[in-house]
């Protein structure tokens, strides 16, 4: 059981290559049927249309086959919905070390009543520059290189950087 879980947990996210799917909070469960040896892995998408999901499924199957598990099923679960709060502390540290600003904690459910409409990053949500640590950063584009990231720029060192958007 732990061997199967360890193998699935070590799979690296194909878009945020510095952290595992376990640290990202995408891995929801690994169960093994003691009778048949069949393994069921449950994952959840970060964003509804995240194109990395197919790669993650394939990588999980490969990792488990290498660990000696031939019968693997990968299930997708939508509830409860993934939130950036599920990114682990070690995951956040690795993102920051790779120059990707981790998301602020969402604390309360990140639901904006539709009447409020305008979702704005408050100053408290604005991440410090992952390179020089300056708090003076600005958003260049809401939607960055992947669905889960925005593109920002540091006003102090002028470096652009990715930011995992709070969701």
């Amino acid at each position, binding site marked *: 059981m732990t061997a199967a879980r360890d193998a699935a947990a070590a799979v690296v996210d194909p878009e945020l290559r510095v952290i595992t799917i376990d640290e990202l909070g995408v891995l929801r469960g690994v169960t093994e049927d003691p009778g048949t040896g069949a393994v069921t892995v449950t994952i959840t*998408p970060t*964003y*509804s*249309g*995240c*194109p990395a999901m197919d790669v993650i499924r394939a990588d999980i199957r490969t990792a488990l086959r290498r660990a000696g598990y031939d019968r693997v099923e990968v299930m997708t*679960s*939508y*509830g*409860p*919905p*993934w939130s950036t709060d599920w990114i682990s502390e070690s995951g956040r540290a690795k993102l920051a070390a790779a120059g990707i600003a981790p998301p602020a904690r969402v604390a309360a459910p*990140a*639901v*904006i*009543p*539709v*009447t*409020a*409409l*305008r*979702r*704005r990053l408050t100053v408290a949500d604005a991440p410090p520059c992952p390179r020089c640590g300056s708090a003076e950063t600005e958003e*260049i*584009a*809401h*939607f*960055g*290189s*992947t*669905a889960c990231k925005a*593109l920002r720029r540091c006003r102090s060192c002028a470096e652009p950087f990715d930011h995992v*958007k709070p*969701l």
Partner: protein
Amino acid sequence: MTTDLFEYVLRIGDDALIAAQRLAEWSTRAPEMEEDIALSNIALDQLGVARAMLTYAGELEGAGRGEDDLAFLREDREFRNCLLVELPNGDFAVTMARLLFLSAYQGSLYDGLVGSADGRLAGVAAKARKESAYHVDHAAQWTVRLGDGTAESHKRMQAAVDDLWPYTHELFGSDAIVSGVAEAGVGVDPASLREGWTEAVSSVLDEATLTRPADGWAPGGGRDGLHTEHLSYLLSEMQVLHRAHPGASW
């Protein structure tokens, strides 16, 4: 009830699917790189909802149809999307006005579906509502920038709002299907979303110095499969590969 739920889920899925296809038409054609990526990302979110909904619809129908069968092998009369999503992209103002109207509607719909007695619908909605908030914000920012911009951008943004406004009425139409699923605690009666939607959209139009059009002509029919001519052209492009190579995967 299962047949009604199939129809209901299909409506939500088809709205998202056709919106995704239209947004994807901007890929490599948007006015700037950041916008190209933004519209593609929003299209992906829409496609994600569409895939989840069409997969579920196929299961409800129980006839062995999967997401691909429903997306690629139906004719225009079998699609249940609203007319708003199938209209051509027009200029950038039209695209943004449509995104504002649609995502404000979808956001409030998904908000309501989070409390659905149907776990599948509630699960997809709980994820999609947070994405809709980003879509609404993106469209609202552009609506304000263009509406409260130059004389030319203001003129175009107002024209876009005027052209699309009649098509928003269909979003809130009720019929036996939505009434049934709403009474069962599974769906949301779209008529109940209208007040909040109008308030939200009006506040953006105000900030953008745009005039909210008067209500009048209210085209509809999409929920019954009666579409504009534009949907057929969209479908022929979207479906051609799958029809030419049945069952192909990559």
